[in-house]
């Protein structure tokens, strides 16, 4: 019998504010240990929090982007537990009154279909610091630079049914936060972190016991960890065992999940309203203002690309997956006036180049302006599509512009009737046998003769003209 997986994700997104959630300490990445840990961040006695307005606006921006209810009266709570990277001995978080309530996100599956995933809530909280277990032989070092960095924890409904869906959800979330410019979403730097709740059941049955997988910090690992966990739970249940509700860690080296070590001290977080902060009021005016500043989001942009540029749903999806990609495409399309050619060049040639060089589009060696120029030269027949690929490679290598490359290397397409006629005459003379075959009705030979002419011109002759002239001469 079939098993059905039921998966929900809790995603922590680091908000890209300049300063921390409750203090004026810098959040810049990569500073020396504890150089970005000030008196509030270190929980010095008597220090107090004041909420970063920009972090709040970013959270609301996210809420509006996923059509969520916004908590008009949002409350911070203290979540109490002891850990050396948690200076106050409590994390300031939100329990009953989060800033973002129920909303939803549409994910795009590989077969081209869409699925709506519920978002239960998203709340603001502060990050903890880092425990460096390898810093010393018998001791642990604590770096509190990250302590107090603003996080948005986005909790999904258990609507995901496979690891692939989970990855699609995560990718969509990544795309949304990048479009909104509220996080760099960089999983490798921990700007986006994912915990997965996984259970399995027979279709239609009640929910099974779930496990929580922590520490899955790349799209690939999310897929692998969930798949491992689904298989593990199947094995347990099929052997007549029971799933234990527990927290498991994903080990990417061994590609497995395993229960967290150490005694599982029963957690009792003793949440209560943070008395050092007052209720956060989010008024209609603020919501209106933030709504008016929302950028066009991936789903809307995809629809527009299809309608405005006549792109296929697939192409529109690929080109809008990231805001940078979509911006780049639109610049090329508008610069060259041919959206389909632009889509083709961006999603094929440019994408191949970026993959090969392992670069983000933001760091593309070929600018959108140059690519638009290149396509213009194809359109006005200065160069052929084939020569254009050569020019493209050279654009990637140096500072020269499109026209400069074409001129310097003499790549301009030959369109002069007289020159082409000379070429064609020479080809007919040198390939008399094939010419005769064509005259005898063997049409396919024409391709060979065109090829010979192109070869003679070293690719520069306009193939359409060659074709036409050859046909004329042989048929006359």
């Amino acid at each position: 019998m079939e098993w059905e997986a039921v998966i929900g994700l809790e995603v922590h997104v680091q908000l890209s504010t300049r300063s921390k959630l409750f203090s004026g300490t810098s959040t810049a990445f990569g500073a020396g240990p504890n150089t970005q840990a000030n008196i509030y961040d270190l929980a010095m006695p008597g220090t107090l929090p004041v909420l970063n307005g920009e972090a709040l606006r970013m959270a609301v921006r996210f809420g509006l982007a996923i059509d969520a209810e916004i908590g008009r009266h949002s409350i911070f709570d203290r979540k109490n537990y002891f850990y050396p990277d948690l200076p106050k001995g409590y994390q300031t978080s939100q329990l009953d009154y989060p800033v973002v309530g129920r909303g939803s996100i549409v994910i795009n599956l590989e077969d081209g279909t869409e699925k709506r995933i519920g978002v239960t809530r998203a709340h603001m909280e502060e990050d903890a610091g880092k425990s460096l277990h390898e810093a010393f032989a018998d001791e642990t070092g604590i770096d509190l630079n990250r302590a107090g960095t603003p996080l948005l924890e986005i909790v999904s409904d258990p609507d995901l049914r496979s690891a692939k869906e989970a990855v699609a959800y995560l990718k969509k979330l990544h795309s949304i936060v990048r479009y909104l410019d509220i996080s760099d979403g960089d999983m490798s730097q921990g700007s986006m972190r994912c915990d997965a709740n996984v259970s399995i059941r027979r279709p239609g049955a009640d929910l099974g016991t779930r496990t929580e997988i922590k520490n899955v910090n790349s799209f690939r690992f999310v897929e692998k960890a969930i798949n491992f966990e689904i298989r593990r739970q199947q094995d347990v249940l099929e052997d007549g065992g029971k799933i234990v509700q527990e927290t498991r860690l994903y080990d990417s080296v061994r590609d497995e999940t395993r229960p967290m070590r150490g005694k599982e001290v029963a957690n009792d977080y003793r949440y209560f309203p943070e008395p050092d902060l007052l209720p956060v009021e989010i008024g209609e005016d603020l919501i209106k203002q933030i709504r008016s500043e929302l950028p066009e989001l991936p789903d809307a942009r995809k629809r527009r690309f299809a309608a405005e540029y006549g792109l296929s749903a697939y192409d529109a999806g690929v080109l809008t997956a990231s805001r940078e990609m979509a911006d780049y495409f639109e610049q090329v399309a508008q610069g060259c006036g041919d959206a389909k050619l632009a889509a083709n060049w961006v999603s094929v040639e440019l994408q191949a180049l970026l993959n090969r060089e392992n670069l983000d589009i933001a760091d593309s060696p070929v600018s959108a302006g140059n690519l638009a120029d290149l396509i213009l030269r194809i359109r006005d027949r200065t160069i052929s599509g084939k020569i254009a690929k050569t020019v493209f490679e050279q654009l990637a290598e140096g500072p020269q512009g499109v026209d400069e490359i074409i001129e310097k290397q003499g790549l301009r397409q030959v369109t002069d009737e007289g020159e082409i006629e000379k070429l064609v005459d020479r080809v007919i003379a040198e390939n008399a046998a094939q010419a005769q075959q064509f005259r005898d009705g063997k049409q396919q030979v024409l391709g060979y003769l065109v090829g010979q002419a192109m070869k003679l011109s070293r690719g520069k002759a306009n193939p359409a003209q060659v074709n036409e002239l050859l046909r004329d001469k042989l048929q006359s």
Partner: protein
Amino acid sequence: MQNLTVTELSAELSRGAISSVELTRACLDRIGRLNPELNAFITVCEESALAQAAAADRARAEGDERPLLGIPLAHKDIFCTRDTHTTCGSRILQDFLPPYDATVVEKLRQAGTVMLGKTNMDEFAMGSSNESSYFGAVGNPHDPGRVPGGSSGGSAAAVAAGLSPMATGTDTGGSIRQPASFCGITGFKPSYGRVSRWGMIAFASSLDQAGTLTRSAADAALMMQAMAGLDPRDSTSVDRPVEDYAGALGKPVNGLRVGVPRPHFAKGLSPGVERGIHAALAELERAGAILIDIDLPNNHLSVPAYYVVAPAEASANLSRYDGVRYGYRCESPADLEDLYTRTRSEGFGDEVKRRILVGTYALSAGYYDAYYRKAQRIRRLIRQDFIDAFRQVDVIAGPTSPHVAFPHGAKADPVEMYLEDIFTIAVNLAGLPGISVPAGFEEGLPFGLQIIGPDFGEALVLNVAHQFQQLTDWHKRLPETAAQAETGEN
């Protein structure tokens, strides 16, 4: 000189009769003589105090006439003072040197005051007798065998004994007003949010409020003028204009409606205090005030509700004392749990531990609704009682404490100690301003009259207290120790 109020000292400084250095040296000398017995100060800052006094004298020579310029003061050891020991009465902060000043400290320094030192207190402000201090009990200047009250016991004793003309305090459930009552001085707690809590070590964040211990209500007005106001670093500090407190002191009580919650006096009120409070109220009535009986029907629930809310908040506020970033750490911890548990068990005293346990329990799974949420609901009822009462009266008056100062060790039972604050706690739960002014003596020991005002009625409360002090001279009756030292000096 030690008998004078801030107002009088300010005039003396202004007319050049004394210098701030002379005044400061006199205070330091007196601390040197009396502190060994009273134990009111944990830290004395002789050198920096004299330097600040000299600077104040120079400023005055250049025409600076600010009212608090050159006036010595003592800070309760709960206020962080940059590079000066700040212990909060606890072993866990025994050697703590804050790298910053509390807003209150900063503001009073900017007003030109001279910091004499840091005063003793109940550990983390948890107590009503100053006996829970790691640095030992404090003697009541009226009878060193008795407690000065708490938790601002050191500040109250210092002001009463003439060690300092004024001192800061904090009041979470009566910690300024009750020691003021026991020591025969004036203790003022402003409305919650009126004075910044930044840099003031937290006990119970939604209740803590800084205030003043002085020899008169007029002095409290001067101090409050310097301390009050919005602090952008404290989210709970209010953004509303600060009234002219000294300027509001002239209004007679004629026609003032004074609410008297008589039904509550009965419980445990000693006969002498009861008689004295009635006499004090009669004094106001003679001056034209109208006494109106009121009821605060939920007042009897204030102690139970407080002993949920305050310990719950404290249990989280004190989690930061973990031996990792500052403060006490136990010797050679075996592992992390040992570090936490031993540091905290050795660093905190019994009362603090007791309250952390009660607070942790009240917040724990399965008990939250029955304790914490219930207490919050009762808190609303208690506040509503006051709001209702202030529809018919301008201020509410009654005893500060059920009796006079008790001997050291007399109240070993925590619950009995908690009931000490039966008249003061509701004011904190409701966030209101309240003052204790000396109102008489019972067997040679002073007791106070408490005057409570509506939200942000600081100017009103200070004026009523001041008017009472125009009608009476209880606040001028110094403790014997102070008088004796005075004689010895001459």
